[in-house]
């Protein structure tokens, strides 16, 4: 079997990896997948750069594109995971007692807000708050905080509100540390359409893997496709979140999942929306240059299949 080393950030969006593995789709394709659990995008990109990893189960797209600006052709996406108010991922939360239905209701209150870490997340949070007419410094302060401290901080009442990601949102709602005010804010405030998908993460593979072992990459992609299909159609796949990812066992059936699509399943609008999100990060100075996202979206298994 061909060995493929996959970097996995153990949150809910890593589910395709576990489905493909547990349901034998890798084996079907004669692929011996090896998981390397890594905390977040930076070490995954590192692993790809050093050649330790061939793929990433759920690599944040901003980081992937950023990596491509540092070393062109390092990261390609074979699937993207879209999030919006239905497929909740990023969201604003508020402490109990703070009455707000949408982010707009934050206006008029001076708030201490925490944010998911990283320049990308900070930029998004700022943009959203700016879009509702709030000014940093006068209307709110924004503090970057490591993801593992989000629930604690809200529970301790250190902040009035926060821009956070799953599974923190669900955990906060469940434990009463905070409640969700509005999810899918990137779609609404940055792309401009509530129903648009914000493709913030995806299944990635390295350019090197693609070039040096195209045949294996094709089979890997095919397995991935099957896993995505299962997730779309079969809710029992969610059982695999349990234990494998940072998902509370009692919430596996209800925790929101992003919409997971292979690249060929994206519509033209989806691709434009994706480009828009990436452009936004360039404009806000996170990415140092403009990126043509189309270059890094690949379909590996269709041509051979058709």
């Amino acid at each position: 079997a061909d060995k493929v080393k996959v970097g996995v950030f153990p949150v809910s969006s890593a589910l395709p990896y576990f489905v493909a593995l547990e349901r034998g789709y890798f084996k079907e394709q004669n692929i011996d997948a090896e998981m390397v659990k890594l905390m977040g995008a930076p070490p995954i990109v590192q692993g790809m750069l050093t050649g330790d990893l061939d793929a990433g189960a759920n690599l944040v797209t901003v980081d992937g594109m950023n990596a491509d600006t540092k070393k062109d052709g390092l990261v390609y996406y074979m699937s993207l995971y879209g999030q919006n108010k239905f497929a909740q991922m990023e969201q604003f939360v508020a402490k109990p007692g703070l009455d707000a239905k949408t982010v707009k209701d934050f206006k008029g209150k001076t708030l201490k807000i925490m944010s998911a870490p990283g320049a990308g997340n900070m930029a998004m949070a700022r943009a959203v708050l700016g879009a509702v007419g709030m000014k940093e410094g006068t209307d709110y302060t924004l503090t970057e905080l490591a993801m593992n401290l989000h629930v604690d901080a809200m529970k301790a009442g250190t902040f009035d509100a926060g821009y956070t990601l799953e599974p923190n949102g669900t955990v906060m709602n469940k434990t009463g540390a905070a409640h969700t005010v509005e999810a899918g804010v990137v779609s609404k405030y940055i792309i401009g359409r509530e129903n648009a998908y914000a493709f913030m993460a995806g299944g990635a593979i390295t350019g090197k893997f693609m070039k040096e072992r195209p045949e294996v990459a094709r089979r890997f992609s095919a397995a991935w496709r099957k896993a995505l299909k299962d997730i779309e159609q079969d809710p029992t796949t969610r059982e695999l979140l349990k234990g494998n990812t940072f998902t509370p066992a009692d919430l596996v059936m209800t925790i929101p999942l992003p919409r997971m699509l292979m690249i060929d399943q994206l519509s033209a609008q989806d691709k434009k929306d994706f480009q828009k999100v990436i452009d936004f990060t360039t404009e806000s100075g996170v990415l140092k240059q403009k990126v043509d996202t189309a270059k890094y979206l690949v379909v590996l298994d269709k041509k051979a299949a058709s």
Partner: protein
Amino acid sequence: MNAVLSFASARLGRLRPVLGVVLLVFVWWLATVMELADPVLLPPPQEALKALVDGLVSGPLLFDFWQTIYRTVLSFAIASAIAIPLGVILGAAEKLYRSVEFVIDFFRSTPASAVFPLFLVLFGVGDRTKIAVAAFGAVLVILFNVAYGVMNARKTRVLAAKVMGAGRWRVLIDVYFWESLPQTFIGMRNGISLSLVIVVVAEMFIGSTDGIGHRLIEAQMLFEMPTMYAAIFAAGALGYGMNWVFLTIEKTFVHWGGK
């Protein structure tokens, strides 16, 4: 009568460390009873204890525990093997030590989390990186302590060996090594604790499928506070345990301290 008393005091001597545990748990318990913090954030010790026992008996914590011990001990062993001889040599050649002091103090003052990327480059994303970073950190503090132990060695003893015809190497092995031994043990206790800290941090932030650090970050993400405190307690107790081993060795071995 006297025998009974001295027996009792010996018993107390044995039990003294337990006093520390009791103290710690008591303060913790008091804090929860006085509700200094939200009980969800700081659960009472008994809950954490339950999580600890559950984790050890039927859960994955026991395995995590072993994994962390394995990584810590391995990295510490590597570190000691490098740092003790090197520390003796550098300490004896003070000028040489001053030349490399910058490098030592530099990296001693750099957080492990900052050099993860560098080590990821050198050692890949697996266990090796964790062990290497931990060993690297421990090397620095052990080296530092051993070298200082050597520099503060009693000069008469060194001269005595020299005049009896001991060459440079013999003096290093026969005198400097022994003279610095009390300090070396301090360094090793610093080193083993640091190894443990770095291994746990690496398990937390580089990512791992097992280990106390993994359990810790998982508990934090899932907001299972009793489990998190159980993991912290496991790490701390492990650290004490390893220190205790060195303390015991030191007590039987380094009998001449201050004499």
